[in-house]
């Protein structure tokens, strides 16, 4: 295939995001992903249709869910001959799925596709300690009664217990928040700036609901019609009164209010070629322009865990011959308010841009009025793999409202020191 074509974002759907142990406490990833797909299918009239490919994933996953996305497709109204596969790139899963689907469409390998993601922090798999797991496997392998007895007797009361998964980096043993606190301190991000960003997120998201923005982007689920974490009446005083959750002493600026809560939810985005859209009576909202991923060495302490998007954006801009100011809208995932603020500071910092990004001049400041204009994860919540789909659908519709040619930048940080970024342009 030598020529490429443009892939369009045609629409999206998500279920409202719930807080951990909220209304979706007993919903599985498969339940939620199926619900997100069903809403997308209904909105776009795809019942019984074969879609080129469905790509989705979850960060916290049961081993039985090895074929999560395909199982969700089979439980949906899509034609049963719609193929699907799972991916996982931590919080970048949803956006990476979008890039993969868009690329196949661009290459002509697919005419349409659905990118999505789901995560449940409530219906989490329970894991037994590694030592017990090994002993149980040995017991399972045992053939003779004597072997079985030996294997069974090897299990000690002290082996028993369960491990609940946590948002902890396996190689550092530090939580994501603890990592972020280090970066926030390094960039001198203040508590006030973080609380302001969090407050704006809540107010912007509430305003978007008020104007019916999500009427064609969301399908209620299990009685929830809005993101459960949203606090429309939050105030700067309320946020300022919260105790710090990460960091120590003067460097402790991060609270539950300016960090995302553990959440449950799912999202899905419909993509297609212009021709496929035309034959299905669908209007492209935005074109997928480019995507980039980056990773940083956070282990050595050389770079902050969640700073990879700063690098990815720089590389993508260079490839596109664009400047950071060439965008009408910016969607920077609010893992923590300080993630967004550290990234913005880095782009404005001459030293960082010269030494780390290899640029002659800093990428510079952005117009903050164009940042997360309909709120982001601090207000909506952040079911890890579902966030990318939420952002892509929201941005595509926002760009479409602005009119043809409007451009938007997406930036999502991910565990493991990774970052996934992309550019959309209004169709």
């Amino acid at each position, binding site marked *: 295939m030598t020529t490429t074509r443009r892939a369009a974002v045609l629409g999206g759907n998500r279920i409202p995001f719930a807080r951990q142990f909220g209304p979706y406490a007993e919903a599985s990833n498969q339940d939620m992903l199926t619900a997100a797909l*069903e809403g997308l299918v209904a909105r776009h*009239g795809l019942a019984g249709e074969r879609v080129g490919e469905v790509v989705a994933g979850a960060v916290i996953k049961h081993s039985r869910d090895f074929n999560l996305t395909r199982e969700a497709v089979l439980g949906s*109204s899509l034609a049963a001959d719609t193929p699907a596969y799972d991916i996982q790139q931590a919080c970048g899963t949803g956006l990476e799925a979008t890039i993969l689907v868009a690329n196949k469409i661009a290459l002509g390998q697919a005419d349409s596709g659905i990118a999505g993601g789901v995560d449940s922090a409530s219906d989490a798999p329970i894991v037994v300690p590694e030592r017990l797991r090994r002993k149980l496997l040995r017991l399972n392998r045992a053939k003779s009664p004597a072997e079985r007895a030996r294997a069974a007797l090897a299990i000690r009361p002290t082996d028993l217990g369960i491990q609940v998964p946590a948002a902890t980096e396996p190689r550092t043993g530090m939580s994501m928040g603890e990592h972020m606190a280090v970066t926030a301190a390094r960039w001198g991000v203040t508590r006030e700036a973080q609380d302001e960003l969090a407050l704006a997120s809540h107010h912007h998201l509430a305003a978007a609901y008020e104007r*019916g923005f999500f009427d064609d982007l969301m*399908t209620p689920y299990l009685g929830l*019609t809005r993101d459960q974490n949203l606090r429309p009446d939050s105030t700067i005083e309320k946020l300022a009164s919260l105790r710090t959750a990460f960091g120590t002493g003067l460097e402790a600026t991060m609270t539950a209010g300016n960090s995302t809560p553990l959440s449950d939810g799912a999202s899905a985005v419909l993509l297609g070629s212009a021709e496929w859209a035309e034959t299905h009576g669908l209007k492209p909202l935005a074109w997928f322009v480019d995507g980039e991923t980056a990773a940083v060495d956070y282990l050595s302490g050389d770079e902050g865990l969640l700073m990879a998007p700063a690098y990815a954006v720089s590389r993508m801009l260079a490839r596109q011959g664009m400047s950071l100011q060439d965008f009408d809208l910016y969607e920077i995932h609010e893992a923590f308010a300080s993630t967004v603020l550290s990234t913005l500071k880095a782009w404005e910092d001459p030293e960082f841009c010269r030494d780390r990004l290899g640029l002659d001049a800093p990428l510079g400041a952005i117009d903050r009025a164009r940042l997360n204009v309909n709120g982001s994860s601090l207000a909506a919540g952040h079911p890890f793999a579902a966030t990318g789909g939420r952002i892509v659908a929201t941005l595509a519709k926002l760009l479409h409202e602005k009119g043809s040619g409007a451009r938007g930048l997406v930036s999502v940080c991910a565990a493991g020191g990774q970052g996934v970024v992309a550019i959309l342009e209004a169709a």
Partner: protein
Amino acid sequence: MARSDAYTAFVNRGLGQKLAATLGLPQPVPLRRHTPGAPPADGPVLVGGHGDTPAVAALRAGLTAAGVTLTETVPEGTRLGGVVVDLTAAATPADLESLRATLAPALKRLGRCARVVVVGRHPAHASSVAERAARRALEGITRSVGKELRAGATANLVLVTEGAETAALGAVVFLLSGRSAYVDGQVFRVGTADVPADASDPERPLAGKVAVVTGAARGIGADIARTLGRDGATVVCVDVPAAGASLAAVANEVGGTALQVDVTGHDAGARIAEHARTRHGGLHVVVHNAGITRDKLLANTDADRWASVLEVNLLSILRMNEALLAPDGLRDGGRVVLVSSIAGIAGNRGQSSYAASKAGVIGLVDGYAADEDLAARGITVNAVAPGFIETEMTARIPLANREIGRRLNSLAQGGLPVDVAETIAFFAADAQAAVSGTVVRVCGQSLLGA
């Protein structure tokens, strides 16, 4: 969909059957409803009437083509699926004897869920007082026969215009069929508009049509979507965003699309029209079904409660229709079907606001049907007025009231949502080009407001 109430189940089996017969209790039977592929009538249909029966003559070929077996005499040893009595030639009340002579022997030979269809002419078009009296008398006869019939049988009257009898074919076939299971004691007024000759697949009369159904997430609206979809239409299912989960399920079930729009929004009509145009290439059928109740005695009703019912059930329809009936909205030959209610005809204690809105809907039908511009575009406007229908809403009525509501009709049972949907699908078909400005009750001939 085949929900049956416990009493009906009880009196249709062994002991219950004997008990009900002995005590003279109501004996509802499971109604015959449409199953794809089944012929319209369940058995031969006797045709007869007064004089040279011009309506039967005009309809004979069409009825036969629709799969109805016609007979001139009551056959021995078999039950009749129905009777079509043609009194269009009746000139004076004395001519009504022909109806008695045809119908009386036939009534004893009717099968289960048989149909009596009386065909007459519009009283207003009569050329003499005597003729007018004879024509008006048919309504009284039909309603009385409806009450006399047992075992799920119904009686309805079809009024046709001289020279345009064939336009009534759709109505007569509908009334003979299982699609009209809960339509009883009604008058169907058929005008003179040309009915497209094209005989579409009788199982998919709405093939190629795009239909919008508001309030489609549940209850009667969901069954309207299912029935229109079954009849071949592409259905745009509309409901408030908060009902999106069940709306999506209905839309996916019928292979349509879900549109989350609050019908009271200022741009609801434009959004629906735009969706139908861009997604499906046009709009042929609009069913305004969305409705709410905020029941309270008028003495205790505040302005907000009052306004919300009028807003959703009546004002929103007016506002949406500005866009939906605009030249780039509903296609020529399009269909508008409204949902009134028996409460809008009979009134109901504690339902002043609801009755206001549902009576207002009848006013809309009258007003739109008189609109010459709509008529020139071939757009018809009709309404159904459901009686007691078994829905989640009526399931919440206290048991005693619910039982009374259910039994106070000639069929001694509540209707199903699909019964309302079938009549809406009837109005929506091309074959009903000559049916406009009518309100048909789907009430099993309820005693209320009759």
